[in-house]
């Protein structure tokens, strides 16, 4: 595309079909302990 550059190709709507395995890290076990951050986490299936 001439006017648009898309940064990512993985669509969230596709993850609804086979997501939800629950093996991912608990949000608060990372660094924070005082906020909630999930967007920075990596799916366990992608590691």
């Amino acid at each position, binding site marked *: 595309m001439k006017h648009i550059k898309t940064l990512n190709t993985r*669509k969230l709507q596709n993850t609804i079909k086979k997501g939800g395995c629950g093996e991912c890290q608990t949000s608060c076990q990372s660094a924070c*302990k005082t906020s909630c*951050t999930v967007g920075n986490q990596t799916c366990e299936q992608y590691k």
Partner: protein
Amino acid sequence: MVHQFKNNGYNIVLDVSSGAIHVVDDVTYDVVGMFLGRTAEEIAQELEGRYPREEILEAVAEVQELKDREELFTEDRYETAVLDFKKRPTVVKALCLHIAHDCNLACRYCFAEEGEYHGRRALMSYETGKQALDFLIANSGNRKNLEVDFFGGEPLMNFEVVRELVAYGREQEKLHDKHFRFTLTTNGVLLNDEIMEFANREMDNVVLSIDGRKEVNDKMRPFRNGAGSYDRIVPKFRKFADSRNQERYYVRGTYTHYNTDFSKDVLHLADLGFKQISVEPVVAPESEPYALKPEDLPVLFEEYDRLAAEMVRRKKEGKDFQFFHFMIDLEGGPCVYKRLSGCGSGTEYLAVTPWGDLYPCHQFVGQEQFLLGNVWDGVTNTAVRDEFKCCNVYAKEKCRDCFARFYCSGGCAANSYHAHGSITDVYEIGCELEKKRIECAIMIKAAEA
């Protein structure tokens, strides 16, 4: 829902429900803002004089193409799936073990009240910790990866029990086909070579508490006699970080109303050589003088922008570092369920006091109305557990129209409770900061693309 913003010279369009992120030129940025409900001709007429007609029509065609591919103006159709997901029988997969309700520092902002959590000083016994690990294994269902954080107070004040529990966990994981991911959060005062060597072998991650510049750190993180802790901990933390090859750790600070210029603290930590840095807003009652105030927000936004731009600059010079709150995984990030179903406190994630009581998370410890049970009898207060089980993005009215809901999962239940007395509300200052951080994180990705 589409969220548009400009940052550091980039025009960014976030399609909230698909997670697609587009970097666009000026004409497209304007076209996206007026696209819905107008024909191509109407858009061309409205933007006439600002851009060449041909450019406008090209941009309209490209925007339409993204819409057709469900990468723009995508609808949020996840509510039913997420609510069904939340109704599943839950298992416990993570524990925050309060290995010591005692501390050798007297940090002024400590939500644990200098380690004691509104209660008495206490150290967890090996027997109680062992029972906690047994409880976790017994309640973890088919989940293989189990997380245990050694937390406090200051966990190194009870290091022998930490060591014994890790040994017990390693023995048990083989018997039950589980894998423990241990982590440790420490203020560093008692760190020594032996503990570092142990942690490098056994701890998936370590969180090292330091606020940044010496004067900032020492004001809020003194010893009980009032002396600052910076000089004592910095050499140890540097050695520790190097011994872990600058991986699988965070130096973790808290910024307050006293250091709203916190980007200087982040950069100070980077200049000390740390590569994994997290500096986060204080959580405090409004009445505290160090609490963040609504009027701090414009300054804090500028600080995040300044930090993000500086990180882009440093990366180009090969002096990059990670800032936890700017990390965002655009390709391998979490699934929709994870993004919308909340942090898991009270269900998948529980905190354990030194005497074995269970709470929904470390921030609720000591508040008796949230006592869930104990590691011997399990969760007996099912009313509180079920309240947490129902906590998700769609249960929070204020999250429904927020672009950030796929990144914060509806925010922190404890922050919400402390701000408004309900776990299904939100903490507004925290939300505003979260939104700003997401924008900065995306801008950094745009700059790297």
